């Protein structure tokens, strides 16, 4: 059985910067319940060097946790991500993870996940069942 490299990765603590991403906004106009919206929103952009040095590959699914809230996102490499952090387009995913005090920049941990990407509907379910 092939070794799963991701199992040996540790948790990495990062600052996530939130901003606009025109490709994601375009997907939003096509429909917030479309696969394209999830594909463009449930993404964690990492600087390639930083991502690789921490054992992440493009396309990996990672669990991003801020406080007691987590979502599963796809890793993509981009040169617009902060050198030692991450970038996320603003959407229901970042709204779930942030508060006003951390609205545009928040601390989080990244760890490998063998699960699938979290869907917006699942976030809504989690949120609506919160006390």
């Amino acid at each position: 059985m092939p070794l799963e490299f991701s199992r040996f990765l540790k948790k990495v603590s990062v600052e996530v910067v939130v901003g606009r991403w025109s490709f994601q906004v375009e997907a939003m106009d096509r429909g917030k319940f479309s696969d394209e919206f999830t594909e463009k929103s449930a993404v964690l952009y990492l600087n390639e060097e930083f991502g690789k040095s921490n054992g992440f590959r493009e396309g990996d699914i990672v669990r991003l946790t801020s406080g007691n809230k987590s979502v599963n996102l796809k890793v993509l490499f981009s040169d617009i991500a902060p050198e030692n952090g991450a970038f996320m387009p603003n959407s229901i995913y970042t709204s779930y993870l942030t508060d006003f005090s951390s609205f545009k920049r928040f601390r989080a941990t990244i760890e490998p996940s063998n699960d699938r990407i979290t869907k917006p509907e699942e976030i809504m379910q989690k949120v609506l069942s919160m006390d």
Partner: protein
Amino acid sequence: MHVCAGCSCLCDDIEVEIRDGSVSKVYNACRRGAGIFLNTGSSRAEPKIDGDNADFEKAVKGAQEIIQSSDSLVIYGLDTVTLEAQELAIKLAEKKEAYIDDNSTFCLGDFVEMILRKDIPSTTLEEVKNNAYVIFYWGTDPYHSLSRHLSRYTYYPRGGKRQRGYEEDRFLVVLDVRKTHTAKLAKKNARFLKVDSDEEVMRGFIDALEGRSPKVFQKDIPRILKEMEKGGFNVIFGGLGLKYGLKGDYSILKEMIRKMNERSEVYFIPAGCHPNMRGFNELLFEKTGYVNKYSFKDQTSSDEFAFHRLLEDGKVDAALIIGSDPLNSLPLQYARKLADINTVVVDPRETFTGKIAKVVLPSSIAGIEGGGTMIGADGTRIRLKPVFEREINDEYVLKRLLEVI
């Protein structure tokens, strides 16, 4: 030519081709703008009551009942709808002695308020195109949020006194916590300053203006100030990164702009995305003296009356959300409370908030299916020239809701 209401640039040079009753080609718009026109028919909202499809008239009746019976109503959103619709929403809030707020409370309303109160000097994009030399983008990435800002209004176009092209006649300064796509444009005649603390950078500019050596960017800040003196007319576009970086205390921003103006003209324009946020701020300001988070019952504005605080504090029993999707854009710990009260959503497209609303009323897409007026981020009024006319638009819905009050 048509106007795109995709962002506060409100580009008025959009041309379209129509085939079989829908937009088949779009000219001049950016990726996002073209998408709005080409996807007019996508993910359209349907009238709903308690999540089930309903007849439009029944849904209107349901919304009327909610508003009529509410003792404590909040109206929220409004930055993507026309001034005419905003006026009706303000009228409805006044008649119901309700709360009214928009995205500007957590977006750039503070900057608009400073401009309207004349705390900081501002100008128009037309003036920027014709005169501006040093152009700052501070805490904003227009490449993604206001895609034609640089090409149509600020950095690249030739106009008025600036006829020699951007490489000679503009000086670009981008300040951000990361190297954004806009920052990558800062090559010749330009600077990118990677900001850790906005306050520290502003203090650096003030120090240099007062003859001291700045503690940060010791070489860049004096050079930028020299360029500003050379240009004579300069502009700072401030975005959400700047707002949140300053954590609500703008005294240092005002001080820096005042001191810069002792040497050369410096103007400030908010770089916000919502097409008619400034319109809402101006209308409410004219009527009440405040730009947002206003209570018609208490006749004042307060942080307590911010939309998210009203939800958090359980102060409202009903919410009328117009042209906004708080479940997508606000921290969900607040927005989720909309599921516990009577929420009415008015929107042209399906939204997350619509999924938890008691009533959903569809409307039209401003600029494509309905006319009216909007005010861009620089305070310029723009008349929308719709491609199609749809009877059911925000104004129509709001008039129907006003019937019962």
